[in-house]
């Protein structure tokens, strides 16, 4: 009952404020504890006055809202003793005290108005005294109406004024009625005459109204007719007039104005019509899926160089660097082409990756089978590489060596896909290896590790890396990481992409998956595509070499792409012959690589590039034939590299060693090749990356770089491979198969030109992408940048991995490539591994695709950023990719067995891969493959499928994994190296798979690198296969993939006790700390140094990935 009359209560302001505050915080439901707390917190923050506001009732949003909305209305307030006070509700306190203005006690007299003296200006009623407050005839919407001062004319304000009574008018279509339509309406459309003719009007008026017009056409009332005469004066004037008239009419301004007046186009056409360009059409054509403008831009960006968008794509594409950039368009085109040629999967993958993870996924699903096929194709390639690797690796690699190699490969692979850096790194590796000059394998190893790693990679990588890193810091990284993680490409992608896009990993993964899926869809195509890619790469290289202008080259590549497609088509048919040719080419390449190693990195690369092209000539023929010797050379280089890789890979990888004695030399190269090859094959990305690298290299040094590029390409491919490997790894049992398949994919391409052709196609696409990048450096750069970051990371990794890998047998192989690309390779490998890991997680093929994509972005990025360096890298990558392809080819022969499992032809490989992947779940197939291919064996340990390889792989993996784990990149590298050694050698694809599985996790990288292509497949497979892989993976891959799938990286770690686990661990470790991973790997020491770098760059990315994951 305590009424406290007050004059203009102090609380009023506060009340209003509180009310306002409360009002401002609309949204909230009934005030809850949380709210109150919130309110209190706010109060504290705001200060005493506000604090009061949020106490008690003020914390109850709804109460505040209601009471505030009735402020200013008359109300009757009943107090405990039954008295009724009437007044204007002014405000209320936190304890729900009511303040009435101009309040008076309601008199008994009904109508008697309050007397002036009865009215109290303000009364505060304690809530404890208030029984009921009755607000009569309140318009609750009153205050909702927007004040006329603010937005009186907004739609909401206008509609609000309707006071809620207004209902939207039902719009009715206007019907002019049949009569009108038949008459006047149509006449308006059909009547071309400009209204009435004057004479008709006059006539009508005269007839109808009797009005006679006085109109005189001579206008004599207004002017005077010209009097013509023949006097000179007049003639002169007339001539003068005509001259002036001519001048005026000839003027551009006049024409423009006349054109405006006479333009037949409607205003809509001229100003408002939305015209869909080819780009959009491409995107639309890709899969009839809706592509967000941003993606379109990205795609366009690829061509146009839409910075971030592109970069994202790049990241996503990272799996297949080449494809990523050009990816969208190229892939599209390629896809289409491929589709024609049966490479649809790839195209889809490529596009999807490039476009976006989702799209990729979509494509993946659609292409799920194709991806598998693609993955198979990749796997085949991997297997070959693996065999080669195993051979080399077993001896040299041990754990660390292989790991290092694998990581490198992975990184190299990853880079291409993930980031230009990776691609670059690969190239550098090669260059380095070349520089190292020594024996191809050993030289690569040692050289790559020492020379390349130390000098070239750092410089390139660091420079690019710097930019990349910056880029990476951007959203790209997140995406890429996601992609990686998602893709399971973790190794490669994680390395490359992960850095790029911490959050993106998933995307990347998706991309990878999509990419993989495309690959899967295009298994055959993939195989073919991989060949194509290789061809493209080679072409690109050639083009780059031949035509410095990346754009031109790109264009050419595009043009060539058809050719590639053709080649693919051809290749597919003549897979066996192609494979043989590829093998031969690979052999040649291996020789060339050896030469390259002997020669300084550049020289060697050049030699490699040149020689490879020649050697590859045949292979290129299919692919490059169209484009030219350069492309062919590039292909050759790639093939050579692949061959060398095969040879070296065997040596270094040893795991694969069983596969090929040739690998001895090629192990390193083979590994790179495998990785590269996988990348390339897996997704145009690798090829593209190679291309990009090639482009960049072209700028730097076409010839020398070409080789490096090839290496880089290989590396890039490695990245894809890494992914693939990862997937395979995941499908440990499958891995063998997958690896084989992966190798096959590569091998398929190589074996059958077809496979390479697809790569070439991708490469072309990549090239296109490259051109795009050149066109819009900024965009590309941005894209590239991210990749660069990857590269940076990779670089360290590369160095690390290179040193390690190189040192180790397989590593050496990797190193070779890496040497050129050292850091880039490392990054690439890392990326690859990440990508590979990513892909593996999702699906092998997807991983590949993703890896490719990622790689391609990277490549693009690398190209744009470090066009020179990138060119080298790109070239190197290209070469690598070719090499990889070659390795793949090399593998393919071995893989043939795998193919036999799946199918004999490269297309079969694709199928095989598919089957493999599919079968991955079915471990058995994988086993067969593994058995057939060395790769499987290495991976087998995990899968158990590959008996021989398993031990080595296990060791290698273990070693590699540890190393990779420290830093994702390192991990990737290490993992890649390890995987490369173990997996790569044995099952590059598997490693990729691991990487893919690990996606973000570096651990994955190992597998991915070698298997980058394969990895990409795995990624694709992961997406699609993941489950299957799990089945397969029960071993490493499965776990990794699963893990990736589940939680990104962590699960994989858990899942894969063996290699995959290591991979996973790596991935996890990478996030946690690169160092741990390093320690794990024998490479650790090296990795540590490089690892730190990687970690720095990578870690963030990885972190992002993880976070994203």
């Amino acid at each position, binding site marked *: 009952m305590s009424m406290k009359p007050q004059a203009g209560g102090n609380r009023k302001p506060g009340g209003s404020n509180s009310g306002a505050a409360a*009002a*401002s915080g609309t949204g909230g439901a009934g005030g809850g504890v949380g709210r*109150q707390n919130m309110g209190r917190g706010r109060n504290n923050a705001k200060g005493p006055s506000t604090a009061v506001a949020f106490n008690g009732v003020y914390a109850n949003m*709804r109460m505040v809202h209601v009471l505030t909305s009735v402020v*200013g209305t008359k109300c009757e307030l009943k107090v405990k003793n039954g008295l009724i006070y009437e007044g204007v509700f002014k405000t209320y306190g936190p304890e729900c005290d009511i303040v009435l203005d*101009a309040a008076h006690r309601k008199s008994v007299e009904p109508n008697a108005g*309050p007397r002036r003296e009865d*009215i109290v200006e303000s009364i505060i009623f304690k809530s404890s005294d208030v029984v009921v407050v009755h607000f009569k*005839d309140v318009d609750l919407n*009153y205050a909702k109406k927007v004040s006329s001062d603010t937005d009186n004319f907004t739609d909401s304000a206008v509609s609000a004024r309707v006071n809620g009574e207004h209902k939207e008018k039902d719009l009715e279509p206007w019907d002019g009625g049949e009569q009108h339509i038949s008459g006047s309406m149509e006449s308006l459309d059909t009547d071309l005459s400009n209204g009435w003719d004057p004479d008709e009007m006059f006539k009508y008026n005269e007839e109808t109204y009797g009005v006679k017009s006085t109109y005189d056409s001579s206008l004599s009332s207004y002017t005077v007719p010209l009097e013509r005469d023949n006097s000179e004066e007049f003639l002169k004037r007339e001539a003068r007039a005509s001259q002036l008239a001519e001048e005026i009419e000839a003027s551009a301004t006049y024409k423009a104005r006349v054109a405006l007046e006479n333009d037949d186009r409607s205003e809509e056409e001229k100003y408002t019509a939305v015209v869909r360009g080819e780009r959009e059409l491409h995107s639309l054509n890709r899969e009839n899926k809706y592509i967000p403008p941003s993606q379109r831009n990205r795609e366009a960006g690829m061509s146009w160089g839409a910075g971030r968008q592109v970069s994202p794509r790049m990241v996503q594409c990272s799996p297949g660097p080449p494809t990523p950039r050009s990816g969208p368009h190229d892939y599209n085109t390629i896809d289409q082409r491929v589709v024609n040629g049966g490479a649809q999967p790839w195209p889809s993958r490529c596009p999807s990756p490039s476009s976006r993870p989702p799209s990729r996924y979509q494509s993946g699903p659609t292409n799920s089978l194709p991806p598998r096929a693609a993955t198979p194709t990749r796997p085949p390639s991997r297997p070959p590489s693996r065999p080669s690797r195993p051979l080399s690796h077993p001896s040299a690699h041990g754990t660390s060596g292989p790991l290092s190699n694998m990581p490198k490969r992975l990184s190299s692979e990853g880079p291409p896909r993930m980031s230009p850096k990776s691609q670059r790194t690969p190239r550098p590796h090669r260059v380095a290896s070349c520089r190292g000059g020594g024996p191809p394998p050993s030289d690569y190893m040692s050289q790559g590790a020492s020379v390349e790693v130390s000098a070239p990679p750092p410089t390139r990588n660091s420079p690019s890396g710097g930019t990349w890193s910056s880029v990476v810091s951007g959203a790209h990284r997140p995406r890429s990481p996601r992609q990686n993680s998602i893709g399971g490409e973790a190794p490669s992608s994680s390395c490359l992409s992960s850095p790029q896009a911490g959050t993106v990993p998933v995307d990347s993964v998706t991309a990878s998956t999509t990419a993989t899926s495309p690959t899967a869809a295009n298994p055959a195509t993939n195989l073919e595509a991989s060949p194509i890619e290789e061809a493209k790469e080679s072409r690109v290289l050639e083009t780059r070499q031949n035509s410095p202008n990346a754009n031109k080259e790109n264009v050419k590549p595009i043009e060539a792409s058809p050719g590639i497609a053709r080649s693919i088509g051809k290749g597919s048919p003549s897979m066996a012959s192609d494979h043989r040719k590829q093998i031969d080419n690979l052999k040649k390449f291996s020789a060339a690589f050896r030469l390259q190693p002997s020669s300084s990195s550049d020289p060697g690369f050049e030699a490699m590039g040149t020689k490879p092209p020649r050697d590859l000539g045949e292979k290129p023929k299919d692919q490059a034939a169209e484009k030219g010797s350069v492309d062919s050379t590039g292909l050759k280089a790639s093939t050579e590299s692949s061959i060398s890789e095969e040879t070296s890979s065997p040596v270094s990888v040893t795991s694969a060693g069983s596969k090929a004695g040739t690998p001895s030399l090629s192990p390193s190269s083979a590994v790179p090749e495998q990785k590269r090859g996988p990348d390339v094959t897996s997704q145009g990305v690798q090829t593209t990356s190679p291309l990009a690298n090639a482009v960049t290299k072209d700028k730097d040094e076409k010839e020398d770089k070409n080789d490096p590029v090839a290496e880089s390409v290989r590396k890039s491919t490695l990245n894809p491979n890494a992914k693939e490997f990862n997937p395979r790894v995941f499908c440990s049992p499958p891995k063998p198969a997958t690896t084989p398949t992966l190798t096959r994919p590569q091998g398929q391409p190589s074996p059958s030109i077809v496979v390479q052709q697809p790569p070439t196609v991708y490469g072309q696409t990549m090239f296109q992408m490259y051109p795009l990048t050149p066109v819009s450096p900024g965009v590309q750069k941005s894209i590239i940048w991210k990749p660069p970051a990857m590269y940076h990371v990779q670089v360290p990794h590369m160095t690390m991995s290179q040193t390690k890998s190189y040192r180790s047998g397989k590593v050496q192989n990797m190193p070779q490539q890496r040497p050129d690309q050292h850091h880039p390779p490392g990054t690439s490998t890392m990326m690859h591994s990440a990508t590979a890991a990513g892909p593996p997680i999702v699906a092998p093929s997807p991983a590949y695709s993703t890896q490719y994509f990622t790689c391609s972005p990277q490549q693009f990025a690398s190209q744009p950023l470090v066009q020179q360096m990138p060119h080298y890298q790109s070239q190197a990558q290209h070469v690598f990719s070719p090499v990889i392809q070659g390795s793949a080819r090399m593998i393919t022969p071995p893989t043939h067995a795998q193919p036999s499992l799946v199918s004999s032809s490269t297309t079969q490989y694709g199928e095989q891969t598919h089957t493999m992947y599919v079968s991955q779940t079915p471990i058995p197939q994988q086993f067969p493959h593994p058995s057939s291919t060395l790769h499987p064996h290495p991976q087998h340990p995990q899968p158990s499928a590959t008996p021989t390889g398993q031990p080595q792989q296990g060791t290698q993996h273990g070693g590699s994994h540890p190393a990779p784990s420290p830093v994702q990149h390192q991990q990737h590298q290490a993992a890649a190296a390890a995987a490369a050694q173990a997996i790569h050698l044995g099952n590059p694809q598997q490693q990729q798979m691991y990487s893919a599985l690990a996606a973000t996790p570096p651990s994955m990288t190992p597998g991915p690198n070698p298997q980058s292509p394969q990895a990409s497949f795995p990624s694709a497979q992961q997406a699609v296969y993941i489950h299957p892989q799990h089945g397969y993976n029960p071993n490493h891959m499965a776990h990794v993939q699963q893990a990736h799938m589940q939680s990104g990286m962590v699960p994989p770690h858990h899942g894969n006790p063996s290699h995959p686990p290591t991979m996973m661990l790596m991935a996890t470790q990478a996030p946690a700390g690169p160092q741990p991973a390093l320690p794990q790997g024998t490479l650790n020491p090296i990795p540590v140094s490089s690892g730190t770098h990687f970690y720095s760059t990578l870690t963030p990315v990885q972190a992002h990935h993880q976070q994203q994951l």
Partner: protein
Amino acid sequence: MAAPGPGEYFSVGSHVSCLTCLGQRLQGEVVAFDYPSKMLTLKCPSSSGKPNLSDVILINLAYVSEVDIINDRTETPPPLASLNISKLANRARTEKEDKLSQAYAISAGVSIEGQQLFQTIHKTIKDCKWQEKNIIVMDDVVISPPYQVENCKGKEGSALSHIRKIVEKHFRDVESQKTMQRSQAQQTQKDSSLSS
């Protein structure tokens, strides 16, 4: 102080009826409920029957019994719209001024008829005020007691005629509103005045 939270006694949107300690039966839709202060806000149809308006009742549950939830509503209440505080403040100020103005007139001894007329005119023409017992409309027309049509004086014109119409209509309405309290009172006075 755990607000309505989990054990929310009244969910927004549900219909509740209760009996106050003063014997008044209240029923309406829950608009808000504050557990700490035991304050419940109900919304019910306008007592005047106007569709656009509604009555809002703030109830202190400490003095209420027989609280029944007629029907509960699980739907999440609609989001709260932001309020135009300045508009509310202006309304409060004007309402207060009007009331004070009216009270001033009342205190001046103005008859109820005059007050009612003033209210009626005020509804249409805001520019009206009391001057002693005279109603000044638009500074032109002065209506002096007993506030009949003929009492409207001022410059001849539209304004005067318009005011006269209002006044005429006002009393006509008052006549017809005998049922109403105010009208009843007016009637008595009116009758008396007429009779007189």
